[in-house]
């Protein structure tokens, strides 16, 4: 099936992470990858989003009207040149802005791609923001696409989803536990839009949330073990559109870490305690659900506390990140929902379950 496909790439550009890595080399690999996507088909569309500390920016969209055309030369294909120059200049500009803000003009910055030192950038990277923007963008494309094809007067045809929309996340950051709920919400929107999410962890440890995102949307997750082979990783595993993956398979996870984060301390938990009313997850038995204010009987609490594994039996307060147990390597969901505590008589049930998200996350 030879149909055009859409690709939205989200690049994690946390300057503090990139100091240890070779950013210029990564950018040139990225550009070659983007060009390969456009090269495959004249009608392929592309959008690039950058996730910066506390900020997400759309770096390039192939549907945007071209404003500053790079001078054409005889040795390069104009669309490639446009992507390359737009993406590279915008990344440089954004990184300079960050550096300027944080350093108060203290560092001299050339027009080269530079990374400010670690200490200055502390805000978490806005990966979720970029993901949401990418989803909104695809949604807009789908609507426009439908509007364009709906004028045939034949209303019986169902709205045509955009062919093969994909999101590729190139991440360098570890899991940001506070963003668990927004990530899950994004995953469910992606499922609804029939968007495949692919992810590549370029450095650092495995990213649990991205693993879950790719698994739930049928995408591919890879962890680039060798920096110098990044382009080959990208090309082989993440370039083929879903239709080609039926013939040439791409690596998927056989082991997925399905753990969720608790709502109270945003820790990734092995054993969670789920509110029977709103399905919120807690790392320890709580007398009152913080989400829906349901009160649980003291007996249930005692029973739950006594049945916890001895290692974790002492409920500590805000637990340090180090306390999180190592990732379980079972494909089986490891968030074991305990038998739900019966809500106390007349437990406040006015509030509806918060969202389907929590239910799904636990029900895996």
């Amino acid at each position: 099936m030879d149909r055009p496909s859409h690709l939205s790439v989200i690049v994690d550009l946390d300057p503090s992470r990139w100091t240890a890595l070779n950013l210029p080399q990564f950018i040139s690999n990225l550009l070659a990858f983007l060009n390969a996507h456009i090269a495959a088909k004249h009608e392929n569309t592309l959008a690039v989003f950058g996730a910066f500390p506390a900020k997400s920016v759309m770096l390039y969209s192939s549907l945007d009207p071209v404003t500053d055309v790079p001078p054409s030369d005889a040795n390069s294909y104009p669309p490639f040149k446009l992507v390359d120059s737009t993406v590279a200049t915008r990344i440089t500009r954004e990184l300079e802005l960050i550096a300027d803000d944080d350093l108060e003009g203290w560092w001299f910055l050339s027009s080269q791609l530079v990374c400010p030192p670690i200490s200055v950038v502390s805000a978490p990277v806005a990966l979720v923001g970029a993901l949401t923007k990418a989803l909104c963008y695809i949604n807009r494309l789908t609507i426009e696409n439908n509007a364009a094809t709906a004028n045939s007067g034949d209303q019986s045809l169902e709205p045509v989803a955009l062919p093969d929309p994909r999101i590729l996340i190139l991440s360098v950051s570890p899991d940001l536990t506070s963003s668990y709920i927004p990530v899950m919400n994004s995953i469910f929107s992606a499922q609804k839009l029939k968007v495949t999410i692919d992810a590549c962890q370029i450095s650092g440890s495995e990213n649990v949330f991205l693993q879950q995102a790719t698994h739930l949307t049928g995408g591919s997750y890879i962890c680039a073990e060798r920096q110098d082979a990044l382009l080959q990783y990208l090309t082989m595993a993440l370039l083929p559109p879903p239709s080609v993956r039926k013939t040439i398979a791409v690596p998927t996870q056989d082991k997925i870490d399905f753990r969720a984060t608790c709502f109270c301390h945003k820790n990734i938990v092995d054993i969670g305690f789920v509110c029977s009313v709103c399905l919120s997850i807690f790392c320890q038995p709580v007398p009152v659900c913080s989400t829906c204010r349901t009160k649980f009987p003291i007996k249930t609490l005692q029973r739950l506390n006594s049945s916890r594994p001895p290692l974790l039996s002492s409920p500590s307060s805000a637990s340090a990140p180090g306390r999180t147990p190592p990732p379980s390597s079972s494909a089986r969901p490891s968030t074991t929902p305990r038998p739900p505590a019966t809500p106390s008589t007349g437990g406040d049930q006015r509030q509806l379950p918060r969202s389907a998200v929590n239910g799904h996350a636990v029900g895996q």
Partner: protein
Amino acid sequence: MPAPVRKEEEQKSDTPTHHALLPFLQVQSANALSRLYQSPSSCLSIFRLLAPVERQIVMNLLWLESAMTPSTLSAWVTPEGQSLYDESLVTLTKLHILHNYPAKLALNSTFKSSLRQALTGGGTSGSFGVPAERDEKRLPLDVEGLDSYALERWETILHFMVSSGTGQNPTRPSPGVLYLLQRSGLMGTHHGSLPQITSAGFQFLLHQSHAQLWNLLLQYLHMAEERQMDLVEVLSFLFMLSTMELGKEYSTEHLSQTQKAMLEDLRDYGLLWQRRPNSRRFSPTRLATTLTSSSPDLPSSTGASSSGFIVLETNYRVYAYTDNPLQTAILNLFVSLKYRFPNLVVGSITRDSVKKALNNGISADQASGMALSLGRTLTTRAVPVDHQLSDHPCSPTDAEELQDQVRLWELEKNRMKSQEGFLYTAFASQADYEFVLNYAKQLDVVLWENSQKRCFFGSLEGHANIRSFIERRSGGGG
């Protein structure tokens, strides 16, 4: 989009169809191809013409320095995709893109370096076209101007084909185009009369405009071979055009002699625009820049109403809401038109009108698909078509009914069937006759027999056997 077209697309997706140009490239010599692969723009364009799986194989190998063992890549192939994958490798080998297969998996080194260069930019090949200096006095034609120019040229060709032999006198395309049309068998002349559309030409009209263009260009390439033009230069110029930017002017200075000669031909087809025939700059039109894309990006039809639809009643009356002369002319091929209004053409499909179309040399297959092609023809002209009854919503059965009727009319025409063969007669005795006849029946070559007259008629392919049988018999017996 109407149902018939949708159906066709699904069929296409099941069997990967190759682009029309690839078979032509496959028969070229390895030497010619590797000269062609020296140009990054050609590599990029050929890459685009490949099927999706073939493209992925190329990309997988593109950035590798050393060859891969075939088993490494085939480990990635799913069991269902195995046959498709093997076919893809064969195609790539035939195109000489894969080198040394099946011993090793590696790209042709020329192709590899050129495609790399295309993706990363740089180099000094100049294969993407040298832009012309901006001339303030004579500004280039804008995109709309180029579109209408291309459309005018292209529709002139189609219109000429459609209205040939109908007594109308449409604008004649240039002699070069006329020659190409006749040379390619899309139009033929009978006894020195005006060229008439042939069966192949009718088939051509039913194609998507993109396929039509490639069809003509392929004929052009065949002709270029005969005219002793350097095929590599012709091809690389076409590919260069396909990677150029719409609305920009390019300089002719760096073109070779062959390519300069091509400018005139391509101008006639509407692929590029020049202010004056000997101008030193040219602008590619949308027809050229979308050569390697698969969708028909032809600018939509002329006139204000670029969209319209057809109402087909069960009494074979046709109401076509269009004001495009080309569409009207195509309809006129098999519909007898009754009234013509500014935006509406009314006609009916009758036995006579279909017979007229059949007499124009349209073959059986084309005729049986005519009812559907009626819709398809118009869709290719970017007109959303809706088959529907005048009073209740469309059902595909109407189209089928019509199709059956057309087929019946077509059968009427073919009451007589001719077949070449031999009449065996003057057998000495009834026994002789029956003996030979039985033998012929075993071979299944008897077309007609008459035992009273002791003769039968056998088809051409059985003759040698029957003859030797009779000879052996008479030889053995006598």
